[in-house]
Each structure stands twice: as C-alpha cells, then as structure tokens.
C-alpha cells in the first residue's frame, strides 16, 4: 500500500469514531415549537380539572398534570391500558373492598418545587368531594366527580401511602382515577394569601398553574393561546422532546385547515374529511387510529318504541352500510360492531355478529311484522354538530337514505348539541324526547363505567345517569355487579367482556361508527404517536430542524 493510500485509509478510519458518535443515540435534545390548532372555542380550564371534554384533558390536563394512574400512550398498535402514574402500585383491602391502598411515587416535585406526597393526594380529593374544605371548588366538581362516581374520600396512611374509599366495591376505580389530576396544594396556599376567596384563588391558579406534568405553563392569554415549555425536571422518561408547545383555539374546521396550509400552525385537530385529500396533496401528514369512541343510535326500551323488539334492533344493526358511510367520510371512521372493537380485552365472544346483511335484516323485520305493507317508522333525536358527534347531519342522512330500501322510514328531530345532551339526561319518557325512539349521542368507551355500566345498569336510568332508554334487565345488573367486584385486572376484563358480549347479543345499541381521532400535521412534526385513545402524549412529538 502506497503511503498516500495509507494516509487516506488512516484518515477514513479516524473519521469513523466521529461519525459513530454523531449517529449514536445520545441524550435527547429539545427541538422546536409546535403550534397546535384545537377544535375548542376557548382554552380549556388550566386549574387541573379541564373542561371542554377530553380535548381539555388532552391539552391542558395531561401535559401539565399527572394523575395517580395514567393511560399508556406510548404505542398505537393495541388499546391503551392503565399504567402507574403518581402511584406506583395499588390494591384493594381484602377485608374492606371499599378501601383501596395506593403507594405513591417518591421524589416527585410540583412545578413550584413543593413535594408531591400523601397530603397532596388527600387535598386534591377534598377539592372536589369535601364541601367543607377551604379549597373546595364547585366548578371542578362537575368536571371530576362525574368521572369517579363511587369515590367518597381519601385518608393519609403515611407520607407515601393513601387510602381511598368508595361508596361500594368498585374495581373500576383505578381507571376512573386517570381523571383526577394532582394540583399543587403549596402553590394554591401561596396564591390564597393574595386573593380574597377560594374561587378567586382557583382563577389565579388557572392563570399560573403548578402540576407535576412534563410541561410547565409559560404564557396564558384567555380565549387566545396558552404556551408551555418543557419541564426538564419531569420525573418520568422520556422527557418532552419539543421545547415549546403553543395551543390555539380554532373552532372552525376550515379556518384550522387554512391555518395549517398557510403555515400558521404545525398541527390541527379534526380536519374536515373533505379537506384531507387537499392536505395530503400538500404534503401534510394525516394520523388516525381507532378511538374508544362510539357513534350510535341509543334505543328507547319503553312505551310504544318499536326498538323494544330485539329483532328490530338486530335488523337495524345488520341493515346499516358502514363501509358506505366510511367512504362518505373519506375513510375517517372505523365501522362499529360493538362498544369496543374485536380484539379489545372487553370484546368477549358475542354470538350475534354485526355486519351488513340486508337480506337477513329484511327477514328479521318481516318476522317482527314490518315490510312494504307496514313500514317501520322511527324518530331519532340528533344534533347538527357537537363534540365527538363527527358529521352528524351527513352521516344520519346517509343512514336514513340507506334504510329506506328496507321500508324503514326515519324521521329526525334535529336539536343543537347543548339541547341534545341535556335531553340525554332526561330519558326517553321525558317530554324533551318528543317521542324519539332513539337518540344519537356519541360517547367515550375508554372507561368501562362510561362505555358500558351507565347504559346497561338499571340503576343508571335518568336522572341518575345516561341509561336514556330505561333499559332494565336483572341479568345485566348482575353482570355489572360481577365486573365491579372483580378486583384482579384479568378477572375484571373477563367480566367486562361478558357484559359487552351480552350487550351485542341483545343489540342494546345500533352501533354505527368509531371515530379515528384524525389530526393533520406539517411534515416538520416528527415523533408523534397516535394511540388508540382520546389522548396523546405531547412528550413525543418534536420539530425536525
């Protein structure tokens, strides 16, 4: 080898370690500002119990705060499961199944530097459940207590252990607790010195919050924007990769799309299905994944409702052309064949297989006495828009047209979203139902209470909860009780699967669609994980420099 070649080879070999060092995984460097256009018309509340539905939890809950238990949002291949958050382990007291013991994570600090401990947990439970507590906030009650229906109180066992008490044995509590975010008591007390009332203090806290989450709030302009910076001291791994997150309320879908296409934002929630081809053509990334969300018709089971007949309910489930509906939405839905999709731990093994089979639907309708001579007339209460309602007018009109071939005449009673969910609490016997045989309110199926129990348990009939159709079957009450009393996760999932399967067999809903949580992003956004969940983890995405 000539000296010249030897020199070249040595130089190449010398460069190799440098190249290796440059490409090896090292500590993650924070990158860029991500500007997100939300669907909300206002910034969701930032005091620790967000409003505006799950979009609130997604953007002003999880990034700023943590809960005792959390959703695993790190992958999108399987349904999200509950994992340890600020609690590392939990179990029910074998001698008193209304008492749960939660062991707390050590070394966690709030953004203001104060320590997270058992006192903080008790304080946060009292803020919504103890009317005598000085920091009790009625505004947070509605946003929290509703999602933890059996939790009654908390008690400190030691600095790193708390006992939580429920009104009845309830194996669903650890799932419910993903909704109780831990705010800093020390920070609140400091603000209380400067404000005359607890309400004013909570408002000050909302403008200057302190949680334990992966981001800290840096700027808050009411109704316009909220900005976060990454929390380098976050207790969990990985830490946030984006340096800064800017959240902007842009309620109008076309305005969101235009903002993304003109480069004013990097990420938009829920682009209109019509805009997706254009977004793709302009190089935008479209993310979607099946969500624990159900877009159904919920039947009325009392009075002269034709949906009292299981044959009619099954026929409607078989008659709906879900693939056609999917085309209408540019692919932005997953056909629903139950409350959860097949393969989910709560799917079970229903014997009634929901599919599109118009011949069988026609046969079942004929058996129930409906056909060309005696059409089935249905009245369904729907909204023209609304959170989680997808494209209610277009979707319902598609179904209306589709069902006409089976001599099913559907009449819609269109009300606004606020009215629809007020009516949902009143039940189908109430005057507000105006004779509707079904109601079209979408719901979350992430938590078994909200996805199954409140519809199938006869005690959940209005005004208690959302069993709008007054469904009442002791067999289902027993299945609910079994699920609530199964404290091992596997046994609980098996009990929930039996409940889900029984619901499908009885066709207790007309299941139509699952939302896919569509979001569009600029090609500069990297690292985003789209889980099978309503929430996302903002620690993952970053801006490609």
């Amino acid at each position, binding site marked *: 080898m000539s000296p010249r070649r030897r020199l070249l080879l040595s130089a190449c070999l010398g460069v190799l370690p440098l190249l290796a060092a440059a490409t090896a995984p090292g500590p993650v460097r924070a990158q860029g500002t991500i500007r997100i256009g939300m669907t909300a018309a206002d910034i969701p509340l930032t005091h620790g119990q967000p409003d505006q539905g799950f979009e609130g939890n997604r953007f002003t809950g999880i990034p700023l705060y943590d809960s005792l238990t959390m959703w695993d949002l790190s992958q999108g291949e399987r349904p999200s499961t509950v994992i340890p958050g600020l609690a590392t382990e939990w179990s029910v007291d074998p001698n008193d199944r209304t008492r749960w013991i939660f062991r707390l994570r050590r070394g966690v600090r709030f953004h203001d530097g104060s320590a997270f401990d058992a006192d903080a947990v008790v304080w946060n439970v009292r803020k919504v459940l103890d009317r005598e507590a000085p920091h009790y906030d009625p505004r947070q009650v*509605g946003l929290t207590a509703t999602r933890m229906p059996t939790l009654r109180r908390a008690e400190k066992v030691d600095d790193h252990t708390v006992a939580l008490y429920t009104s009845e044995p309830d194996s669903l509590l650890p799932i419910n607790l993903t909704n109780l975010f831990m705010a800093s008591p020390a920070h609140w007390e400091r603000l209380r010195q400067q404000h005359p009332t607890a*309400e004013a203090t909570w408002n000050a806290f909302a403008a200057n919050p302190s949680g334990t989450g992966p981001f800290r709030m840096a700027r808050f302009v009411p*109704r*316009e924007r909220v900005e976060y910076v990454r929390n380098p001291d976050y207790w969990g791994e990985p830490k946030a990769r984006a340096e800064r997150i800017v959240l902007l*309320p842009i309620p109008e879908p076309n305005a969101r799309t235009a903002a993304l296409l*003109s480069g004013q934002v990097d990420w938009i929630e829920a682009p209109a299905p019509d805009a997706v081809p254009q977004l793709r053509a302009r190089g935008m990334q479209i993310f979607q994944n099946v969500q624990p969300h159900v877009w159904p018709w919920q039947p009325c089971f009392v009075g002269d409702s034709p949906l009292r007949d299981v044959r009619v309910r099954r026929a409607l489930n078989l008659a709906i052309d879900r693939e056609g509906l999917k085309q209408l939405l540019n692919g932005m839905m997953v056909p629903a064949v139950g409350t959860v999709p097949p393969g989910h731990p709560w799917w079970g093994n229903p014997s009634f297989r929901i599919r599109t089979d118009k011949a069988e639907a026609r046969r079942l309708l004929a058996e129930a006495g409906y056909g060309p001579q005696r059409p089935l007339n249905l009245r369904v209460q729907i909204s023209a828009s609304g959170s989680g309602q997808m494209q209610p007018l277009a979707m319902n009109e598609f179904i209306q047209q589709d069902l006409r071939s089976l001599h099913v005449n559907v009449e819609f009673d269109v009300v606004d979203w606020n009215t629809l969910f007020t*009516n949902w609490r009143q039940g189908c016997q109430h005057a507000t139902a105006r004779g509707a045989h079904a109601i079209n309110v979408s719901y979350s199926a992430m938590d078994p209470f909200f996805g199954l129990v409140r519809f199938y348990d006869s005690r959940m009939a209005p005004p208690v909860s959302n069993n709008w159709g007054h469904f009442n079957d002791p067999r289902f009450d027993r299945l609910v009780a079994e699920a609530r009393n199964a404290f091992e996760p596997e046994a609980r999932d098996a009990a929930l699967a039996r409940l889900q399967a029984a619901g499908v067999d009885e066709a207790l809903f007309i299941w139509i669609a699952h939302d896919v949580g569509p979001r569009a992003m600029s090609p500069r956004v990297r690292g985003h994980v789209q889980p099978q969940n309503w929430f996302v983890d903002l620690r993952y995405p970053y801006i490609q420099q």
Partner: protein
Amino acid sequence: MIRYLIRRILYAVPIALAVGFVCFMLVQIAPGDPINAIVPADAPGEVVEQVRRDYGLDRPLPVQFGIWLAKVAQGDLGRSLATGRTVWSDLSTAIGNTLTLAVAAALLGFTLGCVLGGLAGTFRGSLLDRVAVGAAVAGVSVPHYWLGMVLVVIFSVQLNWLPAMGAGPGGSSDWAWDWEHVQHLVLPAVTLSVIPMGIVTRTVRGIVAEIMNQEFVVALRGKGLTRRGVFLHVVKNAAPNTLAVMGLQLGYLMGGSILVETVFSWPGTGLLLNSAIFQRDLPVLQGTILVLAMFFVALNLAVDLMQTALDPRIRRA
C-alpha cells in the same frame, strides 16, 4: 340641548332593563341548560343537581334575574359559568379587538362607499354609476363568511401572502401597529367592510343624486361656482343623512360579526358570543349583549349630536 342629553341618557335605563330581561328570558326559554357550561354531558343527575345548587341556578327565575340586576347596578357583570373569569375581563379585551376590526372595516367601507356613491350620484346613468351600483349590490348580497373563506383560500392558502387567522403572531395581548400584526387585520377587515361599503354607496348615491337635482345646485352653477365649490355644498347637504347611516353601520360592526370572527378566529365580541351561546354561558351572554346594546345607544346619541352640529336646521329639544 342639555335637557335633551339628560333625557336621552335616561332613555338608556329602560332600554338596558329590557335588553337584560329579554336576553335572560331568551336563554331560559331556549332548549338546553346553562349547567352544561360547568358539567360534562355524561354527568350523573346527582352531581348536576349539586352543581346547580352551588351556582344558585336552582333558584326561581325572578330571584336569579334580581340578583344579576343588583350586581349590574353596582358595575359587576358577574363571572363566566364556564371559565370562572369575570365577564368584564373577557369582554373588555373582546371589545378592544372588535373595535380594532370594526374601525378598520368602517374606514375601508365608508371611504369606498362615499367615493363610489358620490361618483355614481354625480354621474347617474353612466358606466361608472352602473359599476358602483353593481359593487354595492354585490357588497350587500355576498354572504361575508363565504367571502372570508374565499379570501383565505386565495391570499393565505394559495399565495401565502396574508395570515389566515388570529389577532397577531402572539395573540391580541401584544398587539402593535406594525405590519407583522396589521397583516392579520387585512382579510377580516376587508371581509367585514363589504356590507357597509354597499349600504353607504347606495345611500350616498341616492342622496347626492337628489341634491344634484335641486334648484340651489343649478343656481350655484349659474353663479359660476367652480365644480369643487358645488361639490363642497353637495357634501355638506349630504353629510347628515350619510352620517346617520354610517352610525348605524358602525354600531352593527361593533356588535361583532359572529361569522367573520369565527372564520378568522378573531378574538372579539362575536367569537365571545358564539362560544357563550353554545355553552349557554348566561352571565357572559347577558353581560356582552347589555354592554353592546348600551354602546349602540351611545353611538346613536353621538350621531344625533353630530347631525345637529352639521345641520343646525335639525333641532334637538
């Protein structure tokens, strides 16, 4: 004049009461429930009732209205049910933003309207007249939310010349009169200006044409007055009626256009009302409508006084 002023100010009191009452009753009569601003759709009945008690929404309607009225009399518009912030804090920011947009749209619309209307009235029957009338008819006929979306598609999405939404790169709180911020104002102001432009064009055209046919104009011309001199006389005679129309239009613009502000995510009173309506946020709704109604009353009074100043023949006694 002072007596007239006092009388007009006193008229505002029953107007305020009527506006507050009608708004309160409309929200109560409308389907839906103000409690939905605070509790989610899936809240159990027990929690809903507890929160309703906590907020005093379980009290009889006259009591609720009385409490609100007593607070308003002390200058307290209450707190938003949804956010807990004072209504005034949100409303004052929103009014400032709407004022910025309304004044920009008014300047544009009124200037164009006066110029087009003046030319059309002076040269009636000409091509210029037909163009001006066409522009005026288009201005009042085109739905401005549609126009807004078209402008966004052309100037933001395709050409990337102007921003599509928002009130500045950092929000309205750090608004400055530089191009970085003002460019956010261009598209919403143009969109909002088309209706006042159309109305003012038609009004000015009609008034100018009528004045031009009057004998005093012929006399002025006969006396050898220059075209500029005749023009000034016509302007002075047309001003009071034009001013009245402009005052009304400015009032409408100040009310904030719900549609235009929503299309451009402009954080003004229109967007505030939009979210308050959907959330049934009663205190925000009542407070905003009351303040806007009072603004309208004040604006009408100001226009009346200006009309008197411009034309002493209009007496206010």
